[in-house]
């Protein structure tokens, strides 16, 4: 913790921007929840509600040309990196306007123009890919940073181990962002590892490890900006463990039988989105009118995107055969 105390806090402008992102992420997740529950539309998704502060802080710390690797629970990460909502929703709902023409679905959204290089459905598998992206940046001599987002569960995979070791060994410009939401699928984190802090694993690889309150945008900004700056200036990778909570279970529809009602209520009482809003108002960073405008704008943006996607066409059937290979000659049927 002491490492990040020396980092300057974010400016008012940056704080406002983080709240804008959080409001949009919350509205986007809420709209999906509502739409699926009422039968307005159907899609599978892995909700990120409750974890908004992390990608909001990351979003303001990264440059547009910095890259992100994320997971199937990536809605908030994608919004934080600037992927247009219509492309996110479009992909989730199998429309041609989706980021990947409806071919990848919720789990596999990529938008290289926004720096989102990979969303993976395989827990832990994104970290090796992030290492490669960072390796490419170094080969090209650009000071680009690669951030990779993953959960607590991923840190128990062999892929994480191999990639973290390699990132540290080669001193690559990677920021490893662990969104520890205290559950790996349906198993609480304390049942999946002997140690208490994911950040302590960093020592074993020879990289700095930081644990931060994943619901506090200002603390996150400090920790992530330091890690990003370290990577960008050639100082190598950092493991940033951000402790948070997920309000809607592993997949949408998860009855969360494995989380006590008390625990969930307590977590929802610490909801980072209204908490940050209240803090901004109390600190005089934003007026209530301004915050209302931000909330309304988020809602409007989300509703507009949903309508655009519902009006959009599914991909044409010819799309099935496209892009197995660069060219289709002698491709098996």
């Amino acid at each position, binding site marked *: 913790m002491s490492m990040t105390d020396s980092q300057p806090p974010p400016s008012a402008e940056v704080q406002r921007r983080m709240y804008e992102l959080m409001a949009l992420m919350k509205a986007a997740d809420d709209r999906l929840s509502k739409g699926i529950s009422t039968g307005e539309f159907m899609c599978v998704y892995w909700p990120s509600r409750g974890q908004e502060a992390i990608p909001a802080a990351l979003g303001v710390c990264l440059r547009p040309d910095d890259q992100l690797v994320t997971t199937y629970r990536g809605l908030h990460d994608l919004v934080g990196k600037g992927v247009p909502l219509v492309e996110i929703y479009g992909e989730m709902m199998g429309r041609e306007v989706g980021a990947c023409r409806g071919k990848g679905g919720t789990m596999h959204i990529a938008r290289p123009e926004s720096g989102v290089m990979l969303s993976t459905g395989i827990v832990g598998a994104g970290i090796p890919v992030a290492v490669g992206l960072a390796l490419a940046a170094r080969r090209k001599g650009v000071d680009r940073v690669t951030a990779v987002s993953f959960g607590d569960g991923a840190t128990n995979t062999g892929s994480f181990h191999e990639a973290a070791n390699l990132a540290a060994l080669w001193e690559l410009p990677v920021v490893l962002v662990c969104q520890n939401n205290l559950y790996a699928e349906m198993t609480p984190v304390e049942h999946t590892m002997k140690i208490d802090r994911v950040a302590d694993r960093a020592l074993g690889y020879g990289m700095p490890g930081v644990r931060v309150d994943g619901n506090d945008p200002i603390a996150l900004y400090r920790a992530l900006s330091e890690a990003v700056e370290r990577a960008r200036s050639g100082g190598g990778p950092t493991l940033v463990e951000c402790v948070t909570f997920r309000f809607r279970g592993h997949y949408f529809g998860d009855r969360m039988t494995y989380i006590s009602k008390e625990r969930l209520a307590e977590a929802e009482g610490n909801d980072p989105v209204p908490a940050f809003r209240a803090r901004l108002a109390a600190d005089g960073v934003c007026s209530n009118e301004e915050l209302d405008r931000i909330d309304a704008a988020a809602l409007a943006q989300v509703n507009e995107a949903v309508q655009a996607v519902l009006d959009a066409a599914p991909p044409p059937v010819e799309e099935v055969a*496209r892009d*197995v290979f660069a060219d289709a000659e002698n491709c098996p049927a």
Partner: protein
Amino acid sequence: MTMSQALNLALDQALERDDRVLVLGEDIADPAGGISGITAGLSTKHGADRVLDTPISEAAIVGAAIGAAMDGLLPVAEIMIMDFIGIALDQIVNHAAKLRYMTGGRTPSPITVRTAVFGGRGTGATHSQSLEAWFMHIPGLKVIVPATPRDAKGLLTTAIFDEDPCVFVETVALYAQRGPVPIAADFAIPLGKAEVKKPGDDVTIVSYGRGVIESLSAAANLEADGLSAEVLDLRTLVPLDVPAILESVSRTKRAVVAHFATRFAGPGAEIAAIIGKELFGQLAAPVERVGARFTPIPSAPALEAEVFPNAELIAAAARLTLGKND
């Protein structure tokens, strides 16, 4: 030159001509130059930042290659021994093979994974396998298995610059084999083009990799009995040169598919099914398949020889199609 030299030259020339090429793997840098010396001299000539020694981390090696490829580099990742490729399978199958398709073409992954079959040296069950069938089965991967030094160089060059992920399967038993090799840097053999290594009229032996060498030996054996076998070297399993297979077998009316991979559910099964369907009324005999027996590969040379196919077995299979067995 030898196949080893041909592969080394292909890598050297690729590194020379295109800054995007990167080679990574275990023990590949100098002084070791790779477990079989295939990458000897490359790190000294091209730099340790382009020919990268890695820890024993197959998933990270291939995953890093994939990330670098997504960003526009042309990485060549080595999996030292094909039996180790299981550790990297997730990255190969779930990322490399699928990225072009599931991102709607936005982030393809043009990696080359070089790996080597160590079978036939008594190294035992976890260091001897031919696993190319696994990769044929995954849509989005190209699978290449050269049998000669010339093909090794030409196909590796093509693989490195191919826009799709390629699994390039080398065979240690063939590394010392000598043959003529075009030394031009731009010498490239297109994927999906089989080659008749020996023309014939009476039976087609379809094979690849080490199987080609044994098939040629079988063909010589058959020739002595006045039987004319055509040996068709597939060179690539995906894309598969179905037109060449059908062209040959429609002439000879008989086919043997031979490979060192396990016969059961091996690549030969797909090829035999294609021949059987497309040429059903024209075949003079059922398609024969020759492959390794359905066992883990034993270490003792006397036992290993029982498991792997050889020229005699291939010739016997050919005779079976010709109704000439005793």
